[in-house]
């Protein structure tokens, strides 16, 4: 015991304090929710177990398996084609394949019913060219799998593309020299090398699927998330809702375990020449093969982007006079500002957590890192409850102790909303940054310390510039997530703040889907512009790096 205390005293430094403070601050909502668990299940628990629990589990598993297979198939095949073949319009396709990410899944769900449902736009087209078709039934679990897969596959595409194109040239050359066919290379070299990346993309897909509310509700599929809302609001049983969330978290932990187990202890550190594949290394295609490749990249773009976007544009032409106005531009501005500020704060928080905890030597504090990044798997509604309740205790505390009424700060500014976003999305930035900072290793930093540069100076002059690419990519991901976020925003946004996602949802929820088109398109436009900007920055970095090399 004494020994332990001594060790703690030895390892403790000011960074331990900072780590604990930040970790605790970010973890408050989850701690609040955990406290609820001690109150036991609510009175409707038995009813839920009798009528729903099995269905929630079944549906969630079917959804996960279905979207897992489809997104892996679509995401990796398109990434493979883009990184290995030369064909006309390749760079356009490479870019377009990211874009389905910009459309919120529930909007895609509505758009598909507008296309293929009763009197749908596409059905109308098919009828005029002679097909006798009434509608294509999409509002079932398979339809939901379809919709979610084609709106979420870019997560897998992005991560596997990065991996496929970073495989050193030497490996490809060795494989060619040994006489391996293209297929063999894919199967035995590239795919295993990329599998950790594919799995990390897949994990993001799974989290999005489990957290989906709008699409599942509209299609009438009972999942954990719809069940949590139902239990909380209709059965008026917050306790059981919290227990359902706990079960959902257990499910996530199992998935995470399965994915890790699948990956096993394999680690494919790629050493040697970092010379990456150049455009000249890609294979030129002609004739029927070119057609096949176009199909592989064209199908995801058609179903994930062009069809939903086409329907949205059609609706937009019907309703723009009513919905396109100056107010909407202000809303777009507000959404953008909030997302940008949140992204900045999340990046700062992640960096602080990563580096403070590295500089701190107290092992027991690593727990805070884990708990602080758990927000990504908890349904927005439950986080909302946690945040409201904890900010409430904070306000009461100030009222009681200092007799200060600080409630207005919480209810009329975006402070609470941004704080909740930070908790919800910290993992999106934290994990890639941590992985990348580990990849950079300690050698460089230690060299800098030896040269008498302080920790902070080293961070800003050496470590951060090395993380630039990772910062940009994870930053844009979180930016998009915040822009699209719905349930948390609905609960926590103050009266004078409005976002595009909320505006679109309000129209759609009010059964005015066509009116939702303009705000949805504006949301998509904002995201696309931001993605283009980041990709421009990355390209510039690449050029600079190439110049340095020469």
């Amino acid at each position, binding site marked *: 015991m004494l020994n332990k205390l001594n060790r703690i005293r030895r390892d403790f430094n000011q960074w331990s304090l900072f780590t604990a403070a930040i970790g605790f601050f970010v973890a408050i909502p989850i701690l609040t929710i955990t406290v609820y668990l001690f109150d036991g299940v609510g009175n409707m628990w038995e009813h839920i177990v009798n009528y729903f629990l099995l269905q929630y589990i079944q549906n969630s598993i079917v959804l996960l398996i279905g979207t897992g297979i489809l997104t892996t198939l679509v995401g990796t095949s398109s990434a493979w084609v883009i990184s290995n073949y030369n064909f006309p319009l390749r760079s356009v396709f490479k870019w377009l394949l990211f874009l389905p990410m910009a459309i919120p899944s529930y909007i895609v769900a509505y758009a598909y019913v507008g296309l293929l449902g*009763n*009197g749908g736009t596409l059905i109308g087209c098919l009828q005029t060219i002679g097909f006798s078709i009434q509608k294509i039934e999409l509002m079932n679990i398979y339809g939901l799998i379809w919709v979610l897969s084609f709106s979420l596959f870019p997560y897998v595409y992005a991560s596997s593309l990065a991996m496929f194109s970073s495989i050193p040239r030497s490996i490809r050359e060795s494989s060619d020299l040994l006489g391996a066919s293209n297929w063999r290379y894919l199967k035995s070299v590239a795919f295993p090398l990329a599998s950790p990346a594919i799995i990390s993309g897949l994990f993001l897909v799974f989290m999005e699927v489990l957290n989906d509310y709008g699409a599942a509700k509209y299609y009438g599929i009972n999942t954990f998330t719809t069940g949590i809302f139902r239990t909380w609001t209709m059965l008026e049983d917050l306790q059981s809702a919290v227990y359902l969330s706990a079960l959902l978290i257990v499910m996530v932990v199992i998935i995470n375990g399965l994915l890790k187990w699948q990956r096993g202890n394999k680690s494919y550190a790629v050493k040697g020449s970092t010379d990456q594949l150049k455009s000249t290394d890609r294979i030129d295609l002609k004739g029927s093969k070119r057609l096949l490749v176009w199909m592989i990249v064209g199908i995801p773009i058609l179903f994930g982007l062009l069809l939903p976007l086409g329907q949205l544009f059609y609706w937009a032409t019907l309703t723009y006079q*009513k919905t396109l106005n100056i107010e909407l531009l202000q809303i777009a501005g507000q959404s953008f500002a909030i997302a940008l500020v949140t992204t*900045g704060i999340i990046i700062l928080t992640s960096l602080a957590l990563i580096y403070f905890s590295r500089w701190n030597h107290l092992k027991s504090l690593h727990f805070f890192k884990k708990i602080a990044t758990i927000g990504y798997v908890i349904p927005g509604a439950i986080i909302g409850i946690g945040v409201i309740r904890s900010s409430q205790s904070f306000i009461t505390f100030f009222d009681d102790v200092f007799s200060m009424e600080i409630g207005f700060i919480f209810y009329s500014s975006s402070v609470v909303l941004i704080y909740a976003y930070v908790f919800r999305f910290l993992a999106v930035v934290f994990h890639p940054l941590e992985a990348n900072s580990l990849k950079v290793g300690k050698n460089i930093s230690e060299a800098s310390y030896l040269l008498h540069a302080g920790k902070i100076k080293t961070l800003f002059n050496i470590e951060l510039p090395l993380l630039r690419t990772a910062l940009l990519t994870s930053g844009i991901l979180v930016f998009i997530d915040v822009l699209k976020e719905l349930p948390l925003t609905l609960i926590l946004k103050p009266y*004078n*703040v409005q976002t595009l996602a909320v505006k679109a949802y309000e129209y759609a929820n009010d059964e005015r889907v066509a009116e939702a088109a303009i705000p949805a398109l504006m949301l998509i436009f904002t995201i696309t512009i931001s993605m283009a900007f980041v990709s421009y920055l990355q390209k510039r970095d690449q050029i600079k790096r190439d110049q340095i090399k020469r």
Partner: protein
Amino acid sequence: MLKYSILLLFTVSLMFSCKNSKEKTEQVQKQEITLYTHRHYDSDKVIFEKFEQETGIKINVVKASADELIQKLESEGEQTPADLLLTVDAGRLVRAKNKGLLQSVDSKVLDSTIPSYLKDQENKWFGLTKRARIIAYSKERVKPEELTTYEALTESKWENKILIRASSNIYNQSLLASIIANNGKAEAKTWAEGLVTNFARVPKGNDRDQIKAILAGEGDLAVVNTYYIGKLLNSKDPVEVNAANAVGLFFPNQNDRGTHINISGIGVTKHAPNKANAIKFMEYLVSKEVQEIFAKTNYEYPVNASASTSELLRSWGDFKEDHLSLTKLGELNKAAVITFDEVAWDKGPNAQ
């Protein structure tokens, strides 16, 4: 250069998102009320703006679902900025009242305008507009003479013909609650079971989707709210207009208790900082002029008897309403949800 422009953008954004808190402190001296509302209709915005112009009282609007707003009110406690809670059903208002979130209001205008079955006995909430849940039938395949009551929808001649949305929908919950109140729990469950047997498909989509499904021939009858038909008829989307033109409206139970109605209603919160202005606003909402806007632009029935309805509403004819106290609907809401689950409503006709 780029670095500085990003920094500049970030600072501007920061100011932009913090601006709100400053605004608030300035507003404290001003006349204002804060409204928590579940309604997202454009008609409301017009009405709010008119009120602001006429009285100089500013309205801060927070829109979210009623459940979330109730949760929010509960959490915010005494320091809530909200003066009013506006919902699209009586059930949620009853729940808010039972949680002690609303307070009694003493207003002669409200008392004399709103019939007693459309408001709370203790004057903690008041109905603003009425919506009837009716049967929309295919003009092509169904004669209105074949229809009588909600109860008759379970007859075997409607097998595979009935379209209705999922049980998570509050309008369905209220309808079943009214049947429980009128016929008792056991009979209501038998009714729900019988209806599920007659479903044309698994419940899905919204009220508009049910009407579109009639046009497509998936079913012949849909249980929907009146104002959705008004919205479809006035939609910009030709598909929706066609769907609405293909159906007729039938107001059930005219020979006994009357057609089930629900309300959109409002109450003053327990800790309202601006009670006087909040009451002024409620009185404004039930005025003849505003009630007519609700009827004309949102196709809802006014609660103020002196307000004239719109031409469209008149064309649907007068009807007898179920005068069941709406408080009952709130009390029985949870029983309705449980009954829906017991008859496997959301799994549709083949699950039984």
